[in-house]
């Protein structure tokens, strides 16, 4: 009898304490942050905007209908991200939860005028952060970017996230960003997005997100230059980050165009000329599927295919070499060549690493391409 009583007391005590009741937060008391925007707000101040999803409104079919939106954007200014987030929390009736965040959008102006490295300390220190979100730069104001209504997805941050993944760019997560910016031999390449200024799609003034190139950042995370769309995709290939790309080239003498879909993008760095660290050979490889052919080439002939492969290799080589030269002139080594040299010639690297942005310009990098033509589609020649 007494034993029963003791057991009951013990069980009650265990129930109350072991369920963690003091820390329990119901899902309807949480505000899920899907995107964070960071803007410049004056000397040493930062304006943080959080895009918070409203799950009850997200069930409306076909995006947003009428006036109800499936998210709200709340912003506040503060001394750093945490300070501003505290002020945002004060405006909200639910606790902010950022573990499902899909996007961190930093405005170009902020990166120019402020030391962006300080942003990343909180991301690494606070254990509530999941570093799986994507970091991008925005041309314009990050707050406006978060406010746009997307015609296909319900939130612009989810849309930007999916857009980057669908287009074959999966390694732009925040964790990659932090690792790359901490490594001495690599610099960061960040996608630059902007709101599509085309006429509004759909009846609700929805806008699409457009990629407006890629920003090349140096060691202090300042923008050294911007690569446009085609240069950027070439650079991503040379970085080893993309998974597939499309390519259209003109045949000799302007006699039509050829379009390929390139998959299994790879790249390899080697130092040549007797292991001389100043001469680097970057080999890019891919498998190409021919999808559009308006030239007089007949794809069922083996000679034509070999000629095509040679031409393709040369054309890609010249294009990528131009991109490489352009980036080299800007300075930052986004390709990780410094890291390769660090591993291969570690003692030589010790003398070079201090000023790698300048020293990278002295390295001669030649690009070679080796494309394997996998298939030429289901028709041999153009149907005239």
């Amino acid at each position, binding site marked *: 009898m007494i034993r029963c009583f003791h057991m009951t007391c013990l069980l009650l005590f265990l129930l109350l*304490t072991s369920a963690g009741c003091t*820390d329990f937060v119901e899902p309807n008391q949480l505000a899920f942050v899907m995107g964070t925007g960071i803007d410049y707000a004056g000397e040493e101040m930062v304006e943080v905007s959080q895009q918070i999803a409203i799950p009850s409104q997200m069930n409306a079919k076909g995006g947003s209908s009428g006036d109800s939106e499936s998210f709200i954007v709340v912003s506040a200014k503060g001394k750093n991200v945490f300070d501003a987030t505290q002020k945002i929390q004060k405006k909200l009736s639910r606790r902010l939860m950022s573990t499902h965040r899909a996007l961190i959008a930093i405005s170009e102006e902020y990166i120019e005028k402020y030391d962006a490295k300080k942003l990343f300390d909180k991301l690494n220190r606070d254990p509530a952060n999941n*570093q*799986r979100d994507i970091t991008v730069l925005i041309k314009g104001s990050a707050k406006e970017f978060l406010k746009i209504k997307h015609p296909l997805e319900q939130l612009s941050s989810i849309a930007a996230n999916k857009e980057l993944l669908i287009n074959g760019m999966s390694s732009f997560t925040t*964790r990659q960003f932090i690792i790359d910016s901490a490594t001495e031999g690599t610099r960061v390449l960040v996608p630059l997005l902007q709101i599509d200024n085309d006429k509004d799609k759909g009846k609700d003034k929805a806008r699409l997100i457009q990629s407006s190139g890629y920003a090349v950042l140096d060691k202090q995370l300042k923008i050294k230059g911007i690569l446009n769309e085609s240069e950027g995709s070439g650079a991503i290939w040379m970085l080893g980050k993309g998974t597939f790309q499309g390519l259209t080239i003109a045949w000799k003498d302007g006699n039509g165009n050829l379009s390929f879909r390139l998959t299994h993008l790879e790249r390899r760095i080697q130092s040549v000329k007797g292991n001389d660290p100043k001469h680097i050979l970057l080999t890019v490889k891919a498998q190409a599927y021919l999808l559009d052919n308006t030239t007089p080439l007949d794809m069922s002939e083996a000679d034509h295919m070999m000629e095509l492969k040679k031409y393709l290799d040369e054309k890609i080589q010249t294009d990528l070499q131009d991109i490489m030269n352009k980036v080299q002139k800007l300075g930052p080594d986004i390709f990780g060549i410094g890291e390769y040299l660090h591993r291969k010639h570690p003692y030589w690297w*010790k003398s070079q690493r201090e000023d790698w942005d300048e020293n990278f310009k002295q390295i001669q990098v030649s690009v070679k391409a080796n494309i394997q033509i996998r298939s030429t589609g289901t028709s041999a020649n153009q149907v005239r």
Partner: protein
Amino acid sequence: MTISSYQMFWIITISSMVTTSYLPIHLAMEEARQDSWLSMLLGGLIMLSITWLTLRVCMQNKDKTLIAFIQDLLGSVLGKILVPVYFLLWFKQLTMIAKGMVDFQNLVMLHNTPMIVILLCMLFLVAYVVYKGGITAISRCAEIIGPILIFVLFVQLFLNPEDMNMKRILPVYADTGWLAIVKGTLSSFNYIVDPSIILMLFFFAENKRTASRAILWGTATTVIWGVLATMVLMFVTGPHIAAQLVVPVYSLTKYISILNFIQNIDAFFIPLWLLAAFVKLSVCLFILSYGISEWSGFRNWKLIACFITLIWFGFNLYSTRPVGDAFTLKSFFLNNIFFPFVYIVIPLILWLIGSIKQRRKHKRQLIH
């Protein structure tokens, strides 16, 4: 109360894994960067040899616990003075792990729960197991918790294949040089394994031969895991970030994302670590109370266990107030004087005296 050698293996493995997953990787990585796996390997080898030395001492004095044979070998006065050093060591382990556990829980999972509740739950459990069951209950728990812990800890290292870039561990040696590697070893080797508990536990082992083999295997498993974990950490994050991570194994589990679906499995890792900490804490408490009862002559070691739990609780509550005392992992005194003294110097002396005595006995037997 006897422990079979299979249970001995698990007890040693769990007690060592608990501290290895928590402290030495961070300490080694701060000094040695990419080559911290070399530091861990060196530290592991040093610890293996220390374990072997301790086993030699135990084999020489098979039927006595540490308290009894230290008085035999060194004389009762010196023996009685040296033994409290070991008591301090075990008490320090108890407080360090309990405090680390509570701090970690507070940071990661239970932000609002007061520390006392977490502490009370664990302390009550540990005291109960030592009071009711003694070492047999603890070893049976270890038998069950051990395989699960090892399985999860090893498997979790390899769940990150697409993020691992093996080249991040290069260049080997060129960046750091032997001095940094040795410094890394020196600052971390104390925490990899705990050989002092063997001094007491060996008395309870059933079959001394197989028990010593089991202990060596247990230490080797922990060392292998330590080196592997350091290497995987480097593959995934690279040396700059890894040097700043305070609890690297936990951060590693946060990075796992399989097919973008299985994520956030650090929720598995934390309860398992708590279970392992429970085993280690109960072993330390048992050894401490049994030792004190032998040393002071007070027979009822179970009562002493309850008493020590109260002191431990009070100490933990008090020690968080002055912040300087609370974080003593890098203290010069601890790392360079206290631990080597307890782990290396005393067993060496005991071994030497033991072998001299044996040789004298042997000679006397030969003469007669």
